[in-house]
């Protein structure tokens, strides 16, 4: 169920899991739009030449994926702030899951605080975030 109004949100509520499209083709599309066409983001071999395990998903893309998950949960949510820590690389063409949980609700401001994570198939946290969103 999507959240349409502040009253629909619950403390401790988990946002629906989101599996983003992290195929290299999609990461390239993002990199082109974001003007980040470096080999480390667009080519596994190019990334390996830089000592990386494979092409990286740009941190900016991971951050925007977290926001997209919030919008799937609450389509009208307005992001007041999102803060992210890029703890470890997110590698393209590898499955990752995005999760979130409501950690605070402010009825006066009609805002929710959400903790966000991106984890890889091994369950390792790659990106951490917190967002404050205004709900309708």
């Amino acid at each position, binding site marked *: 169920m999507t959240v349409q109004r502040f009253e629909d949100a619950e403390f401790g509520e988990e946002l629906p899991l989101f599996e983003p499209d992290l195929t290299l083709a999609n990461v390239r599309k*993002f990199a082109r739009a974001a003007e980040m066409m470096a080999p480390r983001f667009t080519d596994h071999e190019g990334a390996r030449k830089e000592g990386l395990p494979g092409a990286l998903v740009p941190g900016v893309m991971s951050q925007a994926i977290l926001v*997209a998950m919030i919008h799937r949960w609450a389509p009208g949510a307005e*992001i007041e702030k999102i803060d992210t820590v890029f703890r470890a690389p997110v590698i393209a063409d590898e499955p990752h899951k995005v999760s979130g949980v409501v950690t605070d609700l402010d009825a006066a401001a009609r805002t929710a605080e959400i903790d966000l994570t991106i984890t890889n198939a091994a369950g390792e946290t790659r990106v951490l975030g917190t967002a404050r969103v205004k709900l309708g």
Partner: protein
Amino acid sequence: MEIEELKRKFLNLDFDQREFPVRAEAMVDFATAVGETAAHYTDPNHPEFRAVPTFPARFHGRRMLPEDFPRLGGIPLDAGKAVMPKAPIRAGVTLVGRSHLHEIFEKTGRSGRMIFLVARMEVRGPDETLVAIVDSRMVIREKPAKEAGGAPQ
């Protein structure tokens, strides 16, 4: 260099300015690649078409730090990024990003001193309306003076 001296010399002084033209095609590709589905992010013909809230996080200035900022013996590492959207970003405008150091603080552990820097970019529209604030956090692990060459860099 002491933290208080760094603050005195560098905090809140603009060290970079850059223009960012905003194209509808880039806005759409940015939004669809990350999984946004709402028409106001994906359809340039929608009356409320705008960039996704974190779009300005892709804006990079010409410099990460002021030109005369001391190197402190280490390379700045990415410690995170925060975006605070303030107004919708529309297609066809040219935005201006101005950067300054917003915070400087240190933590000292067994491995030595780590200096944390927050470079803040204020992104403004053509009429100087603030559309977003983007904070980029960096951490520098200071090398001991003899390892770093003993001189400011």
